[in-house]
């Protein structure tokens, strides 16, 4: 059992490293997601920043809308690339479905967190958003991103086998992510207002359980989606 789980982990890490290396060769997903996020941020900032938006709910809603659509612009690449370059079968032969899902999830999470490190400080500066409780704010972003990338990864696996992948990805992801987005928006707005610990914990609990449920369901279902 010990060797099996260690080989699962090492295979997942191998899939993750493979994706990082091939991403660094083309930088397709990084460029697409980062530029998309910055463009959206500037568009939002230009159109509403002039009015001096101070409402915390509105600011955090805008932040999560930017993050959601940026994620939708690039997180499907992990599986779409395998189908387009016809490497899916080779990957299927070389690793367990679970290892593949976990490796891809780790890659998407890395991508999303890298994006947030760029975009969130920019958002705070350009939109003049004061954040009182930074620790809690980053915790929400972290656990929100885990849930978001878990759902996005499994939907990406589904979408990579369909036609009209780009449009379908956002359409399939949004209803699944709606509970996460609603919670994350309320939570970030609480963090901006400097919420108390009990208040913050209430939201974090939801985000953590969402991520847990989504990852578990994905691990159970992935082999049905992945097999061909």
């Amino acid at each position, binding site marked *: 059992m010990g060797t099996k789980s260690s080989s699962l982990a090492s295979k997942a890490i191998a899939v993750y490293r493979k994706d990082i290396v091939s991403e660094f060769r083309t930088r397709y997903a990084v460029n697409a997601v980062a530029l998309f996020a910055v463009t959206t941020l500037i568009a939002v900032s230009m159109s509403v920043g002039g009015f001096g938006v101070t409402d915390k709910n509105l600011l955090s809603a805008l932040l999560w809308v930017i993050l959601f659509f940026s994620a939708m612009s690039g997180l499907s690449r992990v599986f779409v690339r395998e189908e387009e370059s016809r490497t899916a079968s080779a990957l299927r032969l070389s690793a367990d479905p679970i290892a593949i899902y976990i490796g891809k999830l780790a890659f998407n999470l890395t991508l999303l967190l890298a994006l947030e490190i760029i975009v969130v400080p920019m958002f705070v500066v350009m939109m003049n958003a004061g954040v009182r409780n930074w620790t809690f704010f980053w915790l929400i972003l972290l656990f929100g991103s885990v849930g978001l990338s878990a759902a996005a990864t499994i939907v990406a696996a589904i979408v990579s086998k369909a036609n009209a992948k780009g449009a379908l990805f956002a359409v399939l992801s949004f209803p699944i992510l709606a509970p996460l987005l609603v919670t994350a928006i309320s939570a970030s707005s609480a963090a901006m207002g400097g919420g108390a610990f009990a208040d913050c914990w209430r939201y974090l609990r*939801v985000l953590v359980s969402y991520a847990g449920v989504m990852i578990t369901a994905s691990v159970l279902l992935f082999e049905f989606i992945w*097999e061909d």
Partner: protein
Amino acid sequence: MMLQSLLGVWMCGVILAAFLWLPPAKGFQYPEAARIIVFHVPNAMAAVLAFLVSTVYAIKHLRGRNPADDAKSAASAQLGLLFALLAAVTGAVFAKIQWGSAWNWDPRQTTILILLLIYAAYFALRSSVEGSDRRAALSSAYAIIAFVTVPFLVFVVPRMTSSLHPSDTLTSRGGLGTQYRIVLFSAMAGFAGLYLWMFRLSVALAEIRNGKKGV
């Protein structure tokens, strides 16, 4: 055939009772308009039943790989979409009369809207995958993933904002008058029967279609 006629008579009885026998509900702003509840609540329940059946068949399909289970799952999802749409519309009509605006992001309205989006996405997915085996596997998986997020919608989102919907009318004593209770529960039985009848029809239709294609 016999059951079907019985269902027709039963539903006629429910409609007559709802419009003629029920007294106007005093507690509401427009007591006459409250009769819509007799159709709104059973519609929502039929939608929930249909989505449950759809998920059960999706799980069954992934376990047994029987194309018939996938056809049943899709048929039930389609009916669920229909009932959910009717529940949303009747709800919006009553919301306009009772609360003043047709749509006010009440948690239940949010939930039903997300459910409509989920199953609309489900059919968008089905129509864009080629090959019936692959379509069946992918859409079953999506239906199950979507279903596991529903508890978050039902239990988490309502706690974030307050609801205008009453929460314990059906279960508490004195929440409903006797006449309302009788008609409402008869309507629920009627709508459940209606769902079953339509489900069997569309499953039979799907079987004929698949038989023609030789799948």
